């Protein structure tokens, strides 16, 4: 995926803010061979329990995010979540619950309350595994 440092920082800050529970949200932008992420849409972790190692985003949250993205001329191109005190790699649960190939799945590791590694993944077309994507950082657009 291609994005900016401020976007990556917002993901890290969200993960630190909800620690020791998982944070989650949508990546908004433009879809392509390399998804271009230009905005985030935070959502509450709707998981009822075990929020330290599970997250859930409801269909209602998806529809709200999709409407907000559309209003800005953007699409939902992925999802992010945090792994409190675990590495920034997809878990077995992440693979079992994976939705569609083409989404970018960003995972930020938050160790003892501090965000560390941040990685991006996509589900293989045959749904068997996640492949890591490079994270390309572009310069933020100058404010006018």
């Amino acid at each position, binding site marked *: 995926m291609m994005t900016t440092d401020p976007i990556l920082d917002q993901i890290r800050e969200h993960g630190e803010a909800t620690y020791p529970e998982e944070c989650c949200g949508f990546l908004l932008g433009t879809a392509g061979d390399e998804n271009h992420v230009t905005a985030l849409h935070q959502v509450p972790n709707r998981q009822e329990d075990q929020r330290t190692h599970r997250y859930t985003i409801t269909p209602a949250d998806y529809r709200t995010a999709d409407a907000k993205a559309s209003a800005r001329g953007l699409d939902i191109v992925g999802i992010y979540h945090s792994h409190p005190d675990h590495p920034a790699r997809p878990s077995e649960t*992440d693979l079992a619950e994976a939705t*569609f190939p083409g989404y970018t799945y960003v995972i930020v590791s938050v160790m003892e309350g501090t965000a560390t590694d941040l990685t991006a993944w996509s589900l293989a077309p045959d749904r068997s595994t996640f492949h890591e994507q490079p994270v390309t950082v572009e310069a933020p657009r100058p404010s006018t």
Partner: protein
Amino acid sequence: MATTTEQPSVTIRIPTPLRSYTNNQSIVEVNGATVQAALTDLIDTYPALKPHLYHDNGDLRSFVNIYVGDEDIRYLEGPQTALEEDTEVSIVPSIAGG
């Protein structure tokens, strides 16, 4: 005289990553008097969508929610929910992980 049953024409909203299977269309026009018939028409037209929406046993994947307008079909008549002309059907994922 042979009779033909006119199936209503409805639209299905496609989530962004699945548009690569629908010629990059975000909204696909299909025919179907029920949600099930409309989804069958969608899959017949774009068969590569099928493994991402359905399990091998033919059940919808648990994270795939189907909305008719603003209503989840689980709270309507499920796959047998009737569709009228120009109804908008949406494929809405619920997302989870660990």
